[in-house]
């Protein structure tokens, strides 16, 4: 180890330089938080491709997703419901889906004013 005598405040140079540098943070609601394209945000559901196999419901660790067929077996009318409050955004449902009708979007602005609004239809 160096035996040179150092005064406290080695960081002062960096601190002064940073005053004139661009800040690393943003003024949140206004700046750009730059979410990667493959981020695991809110789910997107492509109803016509769904075959009602319910693998997503079976594998969901938090029982957040629910698939419902409102039509008949021959003439399906598929709906997916997601409880965003329960969803842990692991996207196992996306991996489990054999027909790739579920996918993740990079939408992260999911806060709502009431708990009821968190149960959404995809």
């Amino acid at each position, binding site marked *: 180890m160096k035996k040179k005598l150092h005064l*406290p*405040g080695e*960081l*002062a140079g960096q*601190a002064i330089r*940073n005053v004139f540098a661009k*800040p*690393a*943070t943003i*003024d949140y609601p206004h700046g750009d938080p730059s979410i990667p394209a493959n981020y695991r945000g809110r789910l997107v559901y492509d109803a016509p491709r769904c075959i009602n196999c319910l693998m997503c419901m079976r594998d969901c660790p938090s029982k957040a997703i629910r698939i419902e067929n409102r039509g008949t077996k021959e003439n399906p009318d598929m709906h997916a419901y997601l409880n965003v409050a329960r969803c842990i955004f692991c996207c196992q449902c996306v991996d489990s889906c054999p027909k790739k009708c579920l996918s993740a979007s990079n939408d992260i602005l999911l806060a709502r004013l009431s708990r009821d609004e968190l149960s959404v239809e995809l």
Partner: protein
Amino acid sequence: MLLDILKILLFPGFAFLAAYAFLLEYVDRKAYARMQNRVGPPWYQPLADFFKLLGKKVIIPRNAGKRTFAALPVVSLAAVATAYVSVPVWGRAAIVGYEGDLVVVLYLLSIPTICLFLAGFSSHDVYTIMGAFRTLTQMFAYEVPLFIAFLSPAVLAGTWSITGILAFYADRPLLALVNLPAFFIALLSAQSKLERAPFDAPEAETEIVGGALVEYSGRYLAFMHASAMCELAVVTSAIAALFLPVLTGFAAADFALYLIKTLALLLLLTLLRASVARIRMDQMLNFCWMVMTPMAIIQIVVNLFLRGGLGL
């Protein structure tokens, strides 16, 4: 007479002090944030914090002395504001200057610290008492170098009035350079007086949760904070008057110089705060008694001999 009262109440007295304290707090927080590569708060943040606290509910601990608890913020703020009227701001003379006001200012500036100690002690909480004792221990450590450092320019100038000292050095600017060591000691002890890093052990939030003010809330907390910020303004003003005697002779220009000097001092203190870690109480005591106090004593002895030698 009426003009004097207006001066004390409005400008450059109490109202200006309050406004300037908010500005200094903003500059301090913004500069601190930018030194840390952050965006930092908007300009109205100190005001918003103050008014938000004013509207909050006040909770006084059951076993705290209620009158003391409520009176301390007022006493603290009053002492700081009183000290301010003896510091030159507009022009070269203070509003109320008299022989010996330097000592009065120093004692008035001790009152907020004692108020802080009493606030912690009267709150009857384990963290506030730890904070109170640390405040007091720290006060005994920095008060000696602070006093000696503030008095050494006075010894050389041969007057105990801040206005007089400023006038003395303004006529002989080169002599002010003699006080350079005392200037740095004054800055460091001011930093510990204001309990800012690296001397913020009395309010170390990671150890004792914020120290003496833990139990304070609402408007009492707001005024405690306000008095701390005003104390910062007064201390920087006093250091500027004693150690940076650059004057033009025009009152308005001197006032602009005053603003520049105090802001520069504040930025120095902010840089110090940003670039070091908090030191432990034992390290703080060692530093004050083994380094700062001997240096301050040497300074005052040098100034005494210099005064004799120059035949002032």
